[in-house]
């Protein structure tokens, strides 16, 4: 390749990297969109109910393997940090409620589970990976978005939650 082509190549590669990275930019740093959804246990619930607390919104589905894997760990984390002003909201994206009820009957969790069958909340939060965990601080700002789940990630969640509780 001639030197002019090499320069062009380098410039294009840089441009591409910039464009690519902006396409995958997180929404961290903005206010968490408010929402109200039907709760699995009955009635309605939403983000506003937990104002002033550190909140983790976990988007999950019955058909998603990694989501099932992290549920028991999320439950443990919820029980542990609840007294310190932390709450975990599970937002389920299944199209039909029966499968969700059936799964939670077999493997219950203690944190609130809300249903988002129309995917309005998932869209508002720009969910681009399953599962996704959005960590919101006491002021209602999104501080961190964790995409996917691999064993060991729960340590990451705990570090961030502890950090926000201390603020």
């Amino acid at each position, binding site marked *: 390749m001639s030197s002019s082509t090499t320069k062009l190549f380098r410039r294009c590669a840089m441009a591409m990297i910039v464009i690519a990275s902006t396409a995958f930019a997180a929404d961290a740093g903005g206010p968490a969109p408010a929402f109200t959804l039907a709760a699995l246990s009955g009635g309605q619930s939403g983000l506003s109910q937990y104002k002033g607390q550190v909140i983790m919104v976990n988007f999950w589905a019955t058909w998603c*393997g990694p989501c099932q894997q992290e549920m028991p760990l999320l439950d443990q984390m919820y029980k542990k940090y609840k007294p310190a002003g932390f709450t975990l909201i599970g937002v389920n994206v299944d199209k039909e409620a029966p499968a969700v009820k059936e799964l939670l009957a077999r493997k219950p969790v203690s944190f609130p589970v809300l249903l988002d069958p129309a995917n309005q909340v998932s869209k508002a939060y720009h969910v*681009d990976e399953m599962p996704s965990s959005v960590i919101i601080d006491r002021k209602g700002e999104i501080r961190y978005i964790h995409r*996917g789940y*691999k*064993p060991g990630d729960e340590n990451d969640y705990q570090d961030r939650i502890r950090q926000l509780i201390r603020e």
Partner: protein
Amino acid sequence: MAVVTALLLVRATSADVLPDDRADLFYSKYSGGGMDITGESVLVRKKFTEDFALEASYFVDKVSGASIDVLSQASQIKDERKQKSGTAEYVHDKTTYSLSFINSVERDYKSDTTSFSLKQDMFGDLTTLTVGYAHTDDAVGENNGTAFVPVIAWLGHAQSNSYNVGLSQILTKNWIAGLNVNVITDNGYLANPYRSIRYLDSSNPKGYSLGSQVYPDTRTSTAVQAEAKYYLPYRAALTGSYRYFRDTWGIVGNTYEMDYTHPLKNIWILEGRLRFYKQNQATFYSDLFPFADSQNFMARDQDLAASENTTIGAKVTYAFLPDGWKMFKRGTATFDVSRISFHYLDFRNIKYYGVPDYLPGTEPLYFFNATVYQIYMSMFF
């Protein structure tokens, strides 16, 4: 041969997450064309970390009977094939790397295949690109003794290189489509030593004499398969596929397949399939050559004849542990039956028909039906 590469390219997963651990016990029986073949297999798959899994399987095929080509009454086939295979898979981000080894041994045939493939998820996990390569080494022999007292003569070696590229695309929430291209090049001893050609010979009371096949020592083939799966609103899946095959031996093959899968709650899955295959003959194939050594290359192997076959199959899967039990996530038992009817368009049945009722070249075309049963149990954990 290329037979074993088919066993490798069948794997299908969602790339970012390795499939569940499983153990399968499998039994099959093929009956048709004078042959009875039973197959038994065990497969185990385990994840050692979230990113790394190993799979191993052992397969035993037992063949008995006499196929249409076994013209001398003395040699009934009774043979056993043992196959061992191991696969390692590693996932990193959106890429899955896979390395496999397969070793297949029977009295008169040995085959070793090594293959490597890479699978990449792209564009929001809607597109999956797969690239693979496999290399096979075979040793071809012939049993000149009997089924019970074998005398094996090793005739030669064959090598095969298989290159495949696949693209799978999610079209909508209900549709997924795939396209696969597979180029295979073989060289070496490519003939089946048990087949013979025949040529017109008035000095023989049968009207023909048998002769040796002469095969080219290379073969290159290209296969392209397009398939699509559609989710029906009431919860069922419909699959359609078409494969076009063409090689340097002049064979063009077309495969059409359709599949319907219907689950009942979380317990039963019913499946029905229909497959139609048609091919023309290889350029150097003939059922009856005009005289001895009439061509440079000559074959009378039914695989290279012009033929059609139709398969109707049904499969029932029962989840006896639908929600798991202790360490098992799920347990299923499956029964699968296929009925295949083969028709040859230029391969004649000379085993049962001949002079004086039928002059050479006028014997009825060969056809037969085969039934394949499969029973297997799968435990997921």
